[in-house]
């Protein structure tokens, strides 16, 4: 079984596209529909967490803060995958504990490249 990745995005299309790409690259993917759902999956220990920023219920930044409090997952690098490109938001993400910020549109290969770099 491949490394476990948590992918959090409120868009079903994104979950589908990224889910297929990560699976094809040999990762074991768990998906969540928003920050709250993501936090509820933290019983598992993930190698890395990939997340959208703007989501209902709990947004990406709040979720990162919760992950950093989680004993199982506080070491997992967090990759933000978002349409948001402002330096202000990137700074907020970095301060909360994000490791990488990817601005959409992106190629699934680019995300996999980042994961290989972080977990290789």
């Amino acid at each position: 079984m491949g490394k476990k990745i948590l992918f959090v995005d409120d868009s079903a299309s994104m979950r589908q596209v990224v889910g297929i790409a990560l699976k094809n690259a040999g990762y074991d993917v768990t998906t969540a529909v928003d920050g709250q759902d993501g936090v509820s999956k933290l019983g598992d220990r993930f190698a890395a967490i990939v997340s959208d920023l703007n989501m209902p219920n709990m947004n990406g930044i709040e979720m990162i803060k919760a992950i950093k409090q989680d004993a199982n997952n506080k070491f997992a690098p967090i990759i933000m995958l978002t349409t948001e490109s402002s330096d202000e938001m990137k700074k907020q993400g970095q301060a909360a504990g994000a490791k990488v910020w990817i601005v959409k549109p992106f190629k699934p290969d680019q995300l996999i490249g980042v994961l290989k770099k972080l977990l290789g």
Partner: protein
Amino acid sequence: MARISDVTIKDEQLYWDHRFQRHTIKLLPGDFDVINGEEMLVTVLGSCIAACIRDTQSGIGGMNHFLLPSENKNGQPKNWHDYDSEATRYGDLAMEQLINNIIGMGGKRENLEAKIFGGARMFKTTFSDIGGQNIAFVKEYLKTEKIRITKNDTAGTNARKVYYIPSTGEVFLKRITRTNNNTIELREREYMDEANHARTTADISFF
């Protein structure tokens, strides 16, 4: 950076519509906007698609106006159905930005409804059905997102002018059967050239 992701509506796109007695925002190809008031959105479509999406409870909603890039660098047609094709990435972005902004302003995903327009066979100079590809894409996207389509006026050979009032969900549609010039086609052509060269790969920052 793709034009679609850094759109700002310019002053000259805002006007008072005398007939509808409303502040109105005129969207051009590649634009999108979301409003939470009584204002109206208007756009003119040829092969392009406009998705009008709103939260039926709060009335927060908006419209986009986009076209999938149809050719790769060698002028070969792109296949949008390939899950990670450039065309799909571009279309996904146009839809996601609209939906994200509606949710960002307080809309709820489960309350969203969509009305879709456009996708006419406009370009007399090409044989490929660009409009048809765009229609297929937007329908598939909304199906995946489980957003119901409550109005669908697409395809055909006429351009359309679409007025949309998100607060009420009303749409007024004018079919443009004759034009004195080919402004619509030229504008869409220009936009498609831009889309064909738009950035579809990510900016990545490591902290």
